[in-house]
C-alpha cells in the first residue's frame, strides 16, 4: 500500500513548517526523511500519523483518504525518539498494550496475546526480558521494545521519529543495521526521520531530503548522493569545496574527489597545506590554493598522506576527479 501526501501545508503562526509538500512513499519500502532541524520532517511524519492536522492537503493510504481519520483508526505504528514506554508496565505489558485495548469483539484471547508478545520479543531479540520494567533497560533495548510494541498491532505503516537519536554512537550503528535486517524480514512500509546523513544513506531504500518545509530531492541513496539536485542537497550530504567558474556558475567538489600529488602535475593546481590530520584510515588536509580563492578540504588515504610527507606549509598539487556544476540561480 503506497502512502501519499498531496499538497500538504502546515503553519504555526507566521512560520511555515510545510509548504505544499507532495510525495509518494512506496509500498514495502523503508524511506528516510532527511533534513536539518526545522526542515519540517517531523511535522510531516506526525501529519501522516494523524498526531497533527495539516492546514491543507491530503494524506492517502492506498486509495483511501485518511486526512480526517483519527490517529487511533489509521493503523500506524509510531516510534518516538525517547521511546515513550509506559513506565508503570513491564516490557511484556508494554508490547501487549495495543492488543489489550482493542474492542472486546476484536481482542485476541489471553493465550493468543501471550503467544504474540513472545514472538515479538523474539523478533526484537529480547525474549528473556519480558518481565523487566522499562527503566531497567538501556536505551537501545528500550527502543527495541518500543518497536515491538508498535509492531504488535500489525500496522499498515511504521513511522519512526529520530529512532536512534538518543543512543550512543556504537548502539546507534548496531541498531540501524538491525532495523535494516528487520525490515527485510517483515517488509512493512516504513518511514523514518533523521538528520544523520550516514544513517539515511545506510538504512533506507529511498531518501527524501527536506529543507525549509519543502522536499528538495527524493530518490535512492545512490541517486541522491551521486546526483544532488541542488546545492543545498550537495552541501547537506557532505563537505563541499566550491570553485567559481566563468559564467557565474560554481563547481562543487567533494573532499575525496581530488587527486593529490606531491610534485607538479599537468592540470593540477598548486596549494599550500594549512593543516593536516588523520581520522582513522582517512587523511584530511586543509589547503589554501595559491591562486587565491577559498580554503579547500581534501581527503586522501592516510598512507599516501604519509608517503607525501605532508606538513604545514608544504605545497601540494590537486586535481578534481569529479565535480558537479550549479548555476548561480540554483545556489540561492
Amino acid at each position, binding site marked *: 500500500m503506497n502512502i501519499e501526501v498531496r499538497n500538504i501545508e502546515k503553519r504555526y503562526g507566521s512560520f511555515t513548517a510545510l509548504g505544499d509538500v507532495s510525495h509518494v512513499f512506496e509500498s514495502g519500502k523503508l524511506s528516510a526523511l532527511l533534513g536539518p532541524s526545522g526542515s519540517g520532517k517531523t511535522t510531516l511524519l506526525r501529519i501522516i*500519523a*494523524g*498526531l497533527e492536522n495539516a492546514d491543507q492537503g491530503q494524506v492517502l493510504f492506498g486509495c483511501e483518504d485518511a486526512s480526517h481519520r*483519527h*490517529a*487511533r*483508526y*489509521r493503523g*500506524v*505504528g*509510531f516510534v*518516538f525518539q*525517547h521511546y*515513550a514506554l*509506559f*513506565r*508503570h508496565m513491564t516490557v511484556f505489558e508494554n508490547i501487549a*498494550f*495495543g492488543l489489550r*485495548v*482493542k474492542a472486546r469483539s476484536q481482542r485476541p484471547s489471553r493465550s493468543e496475546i501471550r503467544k504474540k508478545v513472545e514472538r515479538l520479543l523474539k523478533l526484537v531479540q529480547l525474549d528473556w526480558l519480558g518481565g523487566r*520494567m522499562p*527503566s531497567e533497560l538501556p536505551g537501545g533495548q528500550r527502543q527495541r521494545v518500543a518497536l515491538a*510494541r*508498535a509492531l*504488535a*498491532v500489525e500496522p499498515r505503516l511504521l513511522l519512526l521519529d529520530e529512532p536512534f537519536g538518543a543512543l550512543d554512537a556504537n548502539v546507534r550503528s548496531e541498531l540501524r543495521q538491525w532495523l535494516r535486517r528487520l525490515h527485510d524480514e517483515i517488509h512493512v512500509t516504513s518511514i523514518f526521520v533523521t538528520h544523520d546523513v550516514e544513517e539515511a544513506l545506510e538504512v533506507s531504500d529511498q531518501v527524501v531530503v527536506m529543507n525549509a518545509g519543502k522536499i528538495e530531492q527524493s530518490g535512492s541513496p545512490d541517486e541522491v548522493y551521486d546526483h544532488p539536485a541542488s546545492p543545498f542537497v550537495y552541501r547537506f550530504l557532505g563537505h563541499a569545496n566550491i570553485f567559481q567558474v566563468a559564467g557565474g556558475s560554481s563547481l562543487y567538489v567533494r573532499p575525496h574527489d581530488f587527486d593529490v600529488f606531491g610534485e607538479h602535475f599537468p592540470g593540477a593546481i598548486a596549494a599550500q597545506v594549512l593543516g593536516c590530520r588523520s581520522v582513522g584510515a582517512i587523511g584530511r588536509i586543509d589547503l589554501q590554493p595559491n591562486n587565491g580563492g577559498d580554503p579547500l578540504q581534501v581527503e586522501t588515504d592516510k598512507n599516501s598522506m604519509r608517503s607525501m610527507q605532508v606538513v604545514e606549509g608544504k605545497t601540494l598539487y590537486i586535481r578534481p576527479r569529479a565535480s558537479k556544476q550549479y548555476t548561480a540561480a540554483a545556489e540561492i
Partner: protein
Amino acid sequence: MFRFPSCRRKVIPGFGLSLGFTLFYLGLIVIIPLAATFLKSAELDWSEFRATVGSPRVMASYRLSFGASLAAALVNGVFGFLTAWVLVRYSFPGRRIVDALVDLPFALPTAVAGIALTTIYAETGWMGQWMKEVGIKAAFSPLGIMIALIFVGLPFVVRTIQPVLEDLDAELEEVAASLGASRFKTITKVVFPSVFPALITGIALAFARGVGEYGSVVFISGNMPMKTEITPLLIITKLEQYDTAGATAIAVVMLVISFVLLLLINLLQAGYAGRRA
C-alpha cells in the same frame, strides 16, 4: 606537595551538616512538643488512661473524626483530580482565577469557612433548604462535617497532582492513541497510573488535615455528644475543664493512629513506586 582530596568524600558535600540540622529542626518543631504530649498523658495510670480514651463518647468521636476525614479525602481525591485535570489540560478564560480559587481554603481562617458553610447548609440557608426538601440534613450532622473537611482538604489534592499532570509526557498519550486505545482507555491505563502516586499523597495530606481540623468543623457540626462531636473538640473540652492529662491522653491515641495510617500510606506508595523504578 599536591594532595588529592579523599576518595571517600561524597560528590554532594555537606551531608553531615544538613542531616544534623534536619534532625535538630525536626526535634525542635515536631518531636519535642509531641514527646511532651506523651509525657503529660503519662501522668495518668493505665486504668485511668484506658477509661479516658475508651469511654463511649471518645470512641464515638474517633470513629467520626477518622471516618469523616477519610470520606472527605476520598471525595477530594475524585474531584481534586478532575479539577487538576481541567486546570492543566484546558485553557479557558478565567483559568488563572480558578487556579487561584483552589488555594483559598489554605488562606481563609477556618472559622470563617465554618461559619460561611453553616450559614449556607443550615436548614434555612441557600443549600440547606433545598437539601431539607429531599430529606437531607447537612449542617449539624456528620454530612456537614464532611462538607467542611472537603472544603479544607481540596487544595492538598489539586496541588499535589497538578505538577505531575503538567510533566506528563504528551508522547505517552500519542503512542496510546496510535496503538488504537480509546480516549477512555488512554486515561485509565496510561494517564491515571502515572498520576496515581501523587493522588495517594494528596489524599493522605487531605486526610491528615481533616483529622486535625477544628476551626471550621465546630461551627457546622453542632457538637452533639456521641453524634457530631469530633476528637479535637473533645480535647479542647477537656482542657477547658483543666483536665490536661485527659486531653493529652486522647491526643496521644489520635497521634498514634494518624502516624500508623500515614506510615501505611507511605509504604503503599513506596511499594508502587518501587515497582516502576
